[in-house]
């Protein structure tokens, strides 16, 4: 049977010549190679100081959105939980009481909203399912924690800062990504 490709090389195993059996030339060659590698460009990024830019479609941690007046968008409709393939989202709905109009945009809101970041696969289907633009995925990724409990993010972790009272933090949390999704 002939070779399948013409890339096959026949290997001749001759006994070592005197020069080869000294091994020293081969050792010097090897040392030249390692020496050459000393000055090559290092592919490593110095992580905390240097960061790779994220792609524009990067899907990081979730953010629960507020509108311009700082009212929560979420109406606890549960579409995100239904859409979630990893079943990472739980919520409890509650009715808005009179006098809470400045807190919640519509009559119904999420009293409890939890995402288990250990289950979440960051697919972004919750963002696509949301009719109220209440949840979107940001550019930060989940920080480490010591316990599993710490990875269940409640509303206090997810909710975006208030746009009026904490303007700077709000802008920071909003980041680039929400703009891009709106522009689409």
């Amino acid at each position, binding site marked *: 049977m002939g070779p399948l490709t013409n890339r096959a090389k026949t290997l001749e195993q001759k006994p070592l010549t005197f020069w080869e059996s000294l091994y020293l030339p081969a*050792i010097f060659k*090897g*040392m030249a*190679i*390692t*020496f050459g*590698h*000393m*000055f*090559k460009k*290092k*592919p*490593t990024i*110095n992580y905390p100081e240097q960061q790779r830019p994220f792609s524009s479609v990067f899907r990081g941690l979730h953010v629960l959105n507020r509108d311009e007046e700082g009212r929560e968008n979420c109406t606890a409709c549960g579409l995100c939980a239904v859409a979630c393939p990893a079943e990472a989202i739980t919520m409890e709905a509650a009715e808005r009481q009179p006098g809470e109009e400045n807190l919640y945009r519509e009559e119904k809101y999420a009293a409890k909203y939890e995402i288990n970041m250990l289950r979440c696969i960051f697919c972004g289907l919750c963002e696509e399912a949301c009719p109220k633009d209440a949840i979107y995925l940001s550019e930060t990724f989940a920080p480490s924690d010591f316990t599993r409990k710490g990875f269940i993010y409640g509303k206090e972790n997810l909710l975006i800062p208030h746009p009026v009272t904490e303007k700077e933090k709000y802008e920071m949390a909003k980041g680039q990504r929400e703009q891009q999704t709106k522009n689409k």
Partner: protein
Amino acid sequence: MIPIQLLMIDVWFGLEKLLLIGAIISFSLVVAMYTTFAERKIAGFMQDRRGPNRAGPFGILQPLADGLKLFFKEEIIPLTSNKGLFVLGPALAMLTAMLTSAVIPWGSQIEIAGRTVSLQVADVNIGILYVFGVVSLGVYGIMIGGWSSNNKFSLLAAVRGASQIISYELAMGLSLISLLLMTGSLSLKTIVEQQMQGGWGGLLGWNILYQPLAFLIFLICVFAECNRTPFDLPEAENELNFGYHQEYSSMKLGLYLFSEYVNMFISSAVVSTLFFGGYDIPFVNEAELASNIGVNLVALFGFLAFFAKIAFFLFLFIWVRWTIPRFRYDQLMDLGWKKLIPLALANLLITAVVLLALNK
């Protein structure tokens, strides 16, 4: 009755020797410390990595962090070990590593307040014999540590280390005899001064030019004596789990690891002294320079030249380690007994014949 001369010890002589010993020991330790750092850094560079760069600027505080970590680790002495010897092992390894530095001439001489101080702790006339004696003692650190740990791997490593060091000592000694035939002296200071007589400010007098084969054999044996790759069989991480210091922890382990680097430093110094003119500055006539800028400055420059040579050999140690894989045990013995010893003997014969023919 004690002769009165014995009681008239020169206090200043003792003091300057003490200072010199202190300086040399602390210098060797600092250099060894930073050799560990250089090892990691160069290993990183050769593997296209960055190496440690977190502790301090460019990671220069890394050796301190390493040492501190080892100091704070829990010290475990295995129940089944021979405790006395277990403690003695690392101390002995460190001691024998440092002892050799006593006969190495670190520079010519300096003048302080009218006194001429030699930059060598002891100019014994059997300097090289002393070096060999101490190097042979070095095997006890490995042997005692490995045996007293009462661990199969450690014992295997200790036996390996002992037989390796004994085997390579032979070739090492034989290769040096041909050098000694030329110099006619065992004193390291004399050997350096002879080399300084050569042309081009001493460069043509370096022994490497006359004894390249002896240098090669000596260098290979030095690698073996220091248990460095490709001869690091007593350590052999992947077959012996670390070898003779497997049961050690905390600073005892630190001393073992550290003594390897001190050994490297001292061996580099010995190689530079014997073959590369020691503190000789190439292209410079030291005696002429001394009349121009003074003895002390020349001694300083001489020491710097010596240190540059040492640094090159330290780099060579590291360079070879990250290039060549480890020998198999039979290959190691084969190289030592069947290749290096006959080669050294042949070299010895040739040197003797040539010297006889030149009627020196």
